[in-house]
């Protein structure tokens, strides 16, 4: 249980390699379809014009990135809890991989949001609760990665990182809630109406289809990246272990 590489790595094709191959191929296909749906298939938003209408198409990718970030951060909680209960480093690697992929998606969400906001809100940034929360969340998880780097002992690193990931995740809803009371101009496309929102648009059936295609596509991309990174981290630890043995 205290060994770092929990499973020896066999040579040749195994289940994980196949899963990896299938997921990667699926991800390429899914992203192709997603881009086609976002940029071509979805109709232009009828109530917008000019740059705003063009920029609206980023919404599909924005939401796709968003679901990737959400999946990553949720997955990290699962990984952290299971690690703290079972003390199996594979779950710590799940946590780390999920956070790394989630961070990429989170930064994607923020960047796409900023490119959309410039023509629509005439500014790249405002202190809207969603923007605030996403920025803070990205910072929290960047801190997670920095924190890991500072701890040498592999098991201590896993334990401390899991503790931090749990506390950090719990703070996100409170951050969002407090920022929302603070102020809001973000359009709420689904759910409650926000009378102050700017740049909103109504979603027709074809647009919903395009959105769903993107959400599914990004989920597949997320899974492929997660598995890839997870295996990479596993190999890293296995190499470190081998290096220790020959030293």
């Amino acid at each position, binding site marked *: 249980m205290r060994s770092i590489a929990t499973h020896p790595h066999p040579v040749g094709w195994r289940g994980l390699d196949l899963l990896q191959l299938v997921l990667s191929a699926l991800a390429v296909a899914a992203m192709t379809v997603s881009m086609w749906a976002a940029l071509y298939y979805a109709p232009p938003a009828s109530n917008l014009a000019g740059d705003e209408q063009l920029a609206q198409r980023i919404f599909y990718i924005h939401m796709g990135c968003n679901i990737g970030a959400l999946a990553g951060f949720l997955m990290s909680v699962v990984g952290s809890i299971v690690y*703290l209960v079972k003390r199996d480093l594979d779950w710590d690697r799940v946590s780390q991989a999920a956070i790394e992929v989630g961070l990429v998606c989170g930064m994607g969400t923020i960047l796409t949001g900023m490119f959309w906001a410039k023509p629509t809100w005439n500014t790249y940034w405002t202190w809207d609760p969603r923007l605030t929360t996403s920025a803070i969340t990205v910072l929290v998880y960047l801190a997670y990665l920095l924190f890991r780097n500072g701890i040498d002992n592999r098991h201590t690193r896993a334990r401390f990182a899991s503790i931090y990931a749990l506390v950090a995740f*719990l703070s996100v809803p409170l951050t969002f809630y407090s920022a929302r009371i603070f102020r809001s101009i973000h359009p709420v496309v689904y759910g409650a109406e926000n009378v102050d929102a700017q740049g909103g648009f109504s979603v027709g059936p074809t647009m919903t289809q395009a959105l769903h295609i993107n959400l599914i596509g990004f989920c597949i991309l997320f899974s492929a990246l997660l598995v890839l990174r997870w295996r990479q981290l596993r190999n890293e630890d296995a190499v470190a272990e081998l290096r220790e043995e020959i030293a």
Partner: protein
Amino acid sequence: MRKKTLSAEPPPLHSAQIDLAAHPIAMRLNGGVFAYLGKVAAVLLKDVRAELRGREIFSTMTAFSVLAVLIFGMAFDLRVPRAEMIAPGVLWVVVLFTGVLGLNRSFGAEVDRGTLPSLLLAPVDRSAIYFGKMLANLLFTLATALVILAVMFFVFDLNLFQPYNLAAMLLGVIGYVGVGTLFAALTANSRARETLLPILLLPVMVPVFVSGVALTASVLDGKAWEDLSQWFGILTAFDAIFIVVAYLLFDLVWEDG
């Protein structure tokens, strides 16, 4: 409460100085809640006494906080017509940044002087150490906060010693040191302790910061309780959630040395 007496056998002695056996000691085992609270108090008093003798934490914190308030005052002086406009932000930024200094020393001093094992060797539930340290940090940070309020009173000519604002500061600082003590324990052994703690702590503190700023601003605007209550709700929820979580997780920090 069981009492158990552990006594040494009468030894053949050369030195008259050694009379350990003359005082058999009684230890209270499984003392329950009061023994637990006694240990929390012991850790708290130890930190306070060490601070009174050594004057390392509080003096640094006050010096930094006074400096920070003055720098903010100067920085905004030309562009901000009225101090009320920046006071809430300045207050909470300075409190949060100053607090990190104290939190860093909380376990950092124990690690630097090699005294941490003495706490870990004691027959004490680790959470008692957490609460003791947390209360000590609470005390130091609140004392500094009062100094900050006093400085702001003179520099900005603003009276922030108002009941609602003081309540907000109390609740905010409780949540702050609640999480901060856990994180200080996490970073105490790390190479870049001093820089790492604020990076870990401040993003998690956003709800406290936002609520605190909103509350202080509302107090300055003379708003009624109805406008303040939801912010107090957030602060209370934050304190409750994170102190329970820290209590549950703190034991896991010390699994190996």
